[in-house]
């Protein structure tokens, strides 16, 4: 699956962070196909924990200061994913092929339903809140 530029909102910091996650997803997916995903799996699990913490806080800072109407729903989505990742870590202490497949499914789902949908809407709102900007 190629996400091309569909994930881009034109909000530079947000696009940068989304691209990071999408790139990592594509990398581990490829490694999984080649059965060389064990070390990348470990990295991804550790990375996700830090990533969501920072990325979500930042999006939430914007939602708050820019009075985003969909704030509450969006915030709940974030919380649900944080929970999901935490539960995943608790269930999977180490690497297994099943765990890796599971992680891939969850990441893909997040990219498709949240980054390409909800975050797009948020990005457009950020745009509309900043003057001197061309439309995304």
């Amino acid at each position, binding site marked *: 699956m190629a996400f091309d530029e569909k994930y881009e909102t034109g909000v530079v*910091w947000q696009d*940068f*962070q989304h691209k990071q996650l999408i790139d990592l997803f594509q990398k581990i997916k490829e490694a999984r196909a080649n059965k060389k995903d064990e070390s990348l799996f470990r990295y991804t699990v550790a990375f996700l924990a830090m990533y969501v913490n*920072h990325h979500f806080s*930042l999006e939430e800072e*914007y939602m708050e*200061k*820019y009075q985003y109407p969909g704030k509450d729903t969006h915030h709940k989505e974030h919380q649900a994913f944080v929970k999901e990742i935490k539960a995943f870590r608790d269930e999977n202490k180490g690497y297994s092929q099943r765990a890796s497949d599971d992680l891939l499914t969850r990441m893909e789902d997040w990219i498709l339903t949240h980054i390409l949908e909800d975050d797009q809407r948020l990005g457009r709102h950020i745009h509309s809140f900043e003057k*001197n*900007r061309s439309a995304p």
Partner: protein
Amino acid sequence: MDLDIQYQTGLLWQDYQHKEWISLLGQLKEAANDGQNQQLFYEAISFLAMYVNHHFSVEEAYMKQYRYPEERFHREEHRIYILRLKDFREKHREYATDVCPKIVENMTDWVYSHIMENDKKLGEFILTKEQPRLKQS
């Protein structure tokens, strides 16, 4: 804790990351003063290095996006800091216990002066491209 007003650029993402960066340095300093737990200290530097790398990359993405005239110089400042951090991460075990907290202090001073001399200019430039319709509180 909010970033002191004089260090704010007015860009939410940038102020947020600067605030976190300084708080990570605070944690690193505590770990350095403690001096007991080497592993904790190493983890704190590693985390800081990742964070700083990310922060610089985002600023550099903005510079590229909006063709910032002082990009070359600003990038060079970032590169120097990354090298210092890398050096510290590799060598901190060889230093005497009182040296580490001093180095962390210097690295913190660097952040403040980098913000004043470089990031505020960059922030002002970015704001000419994307000005929020609200007063920053």
